[in-house]
């Protein structure tokens, strides 16, 4: 697995062990982050779906009325009717931090507070279907704004979850096993070197003792004696 060559020294071993500890801790933290992000995301996406279904149904209804209005009115009248909107929406965008993801929060203010103050035309030349259409849209407006907030939040969270998941996987399946492998191979090499030097020392000791006390010669003599006695 470990494709990179590492110098098998004790210093390298310490470094790798430290790296492994950090990687394990990072992996655990990122996994927790991913799980929490996922929980938040699922909550948000369920709301997103519900809102979207409602909003789509309402807009479809409003559009039907609008088409009806259009068919019963001339282009000019319709255009002039909607030319100068009375209402104005002011939107203040701030952000809410969810697990280090900045999710937009919208705060809206309408110019006039009266909810019925949406018809920007006199009723003389316009059809009632137009009123109905505008009314339906006005009713769905809070949901529509909430939908924007939630849907954007979902998109941003989804992005972050994907990224976090990749990082968790990279740590889990690449960094941690690779480091473990390298630690294993270094400790093997170090053990081998230690055994090798142990054997060398024993050999040297043997040679020195031999030189000092001539054990070998004595052993042969003793064997010879034993042979003679037998």
């Amino acid at each position, binding site marked *: 697995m470990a494709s990179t060559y590492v110098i098998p020294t004790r210093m390298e071993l310490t470094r790798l062990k430290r790296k492994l500890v950090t990687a394990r801790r990072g992996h655990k933290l990122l996994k927790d982050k991913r799980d929490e992000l996922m929980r938040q995301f699922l909550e948000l996406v369920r709301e997103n779906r519900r809102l979207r279904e409602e909003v*789509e149904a309402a807009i479809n209804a409003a559009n039907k009325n609008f088409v009806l209005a259009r068919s019963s009115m001339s282009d000019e009248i319709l255009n002039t009717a909607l030319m100068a*909107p009375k209402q*104005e929406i002011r939107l203040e965008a701030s952000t809410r931090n969810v697990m280090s993801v*900045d999710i937009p929060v919208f705060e809206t203010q309408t110019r006039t507070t009266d909810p019925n103050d949406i018809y920007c035309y006199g009723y003389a030349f316009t059809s009632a279907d137009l009123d109905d259409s505008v009314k339906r849209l006005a009713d769905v407006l809070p949901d529509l704004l909430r939908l924007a907030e939630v*849907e*954007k939040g979902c*998109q941003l969270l989804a*992005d972050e979850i994907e990224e976090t998941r990749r990082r968790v996987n990279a740590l889990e399946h690449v960094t941690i096993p690779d480091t473990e492998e390298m630690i294993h191979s270094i400790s093997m090499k170090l053990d081998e070197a230690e055994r090798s030097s142990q054997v060398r020392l024993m050999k040297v000791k043997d040679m020195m003792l031999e030189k000092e006390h001539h054990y070998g010669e004595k052993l042969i003599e003793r064997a010879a004696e034993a042979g003679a006695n037998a």
Partner: protein
Amino acid sequence: MHKIAVMGDRDSIYGFAALGMEPVPVKETAEAVRKLREMVDGQYAVIYMTEELGSQIRNEIDRYREYELPAIILIPGTSGNTGLGMEQVRRSVIQAVGSDIIFGEDK
């Protein structure tokens, strides 16, 4: 202070204009892309767009998915609901979870 815009064919968006949103009527794809780019650079927090127009400039919309603002939200226009708006939500789910677990559950 941010603005809200609504893009699409004229019939679909003029109703929203009455609510105080800024209508941006577009007819051609190239024009839509140019206007959308202008708006992304401007002070727009939310851009509502008809699904019909959205389906023509999908790539352009996908580019702004990871932007914090503006939120580009697809809504049905007078020509009906193409399901592209829901598709965008589904895409978020697939991107996050790896498979579609929200929309498959009640089928």
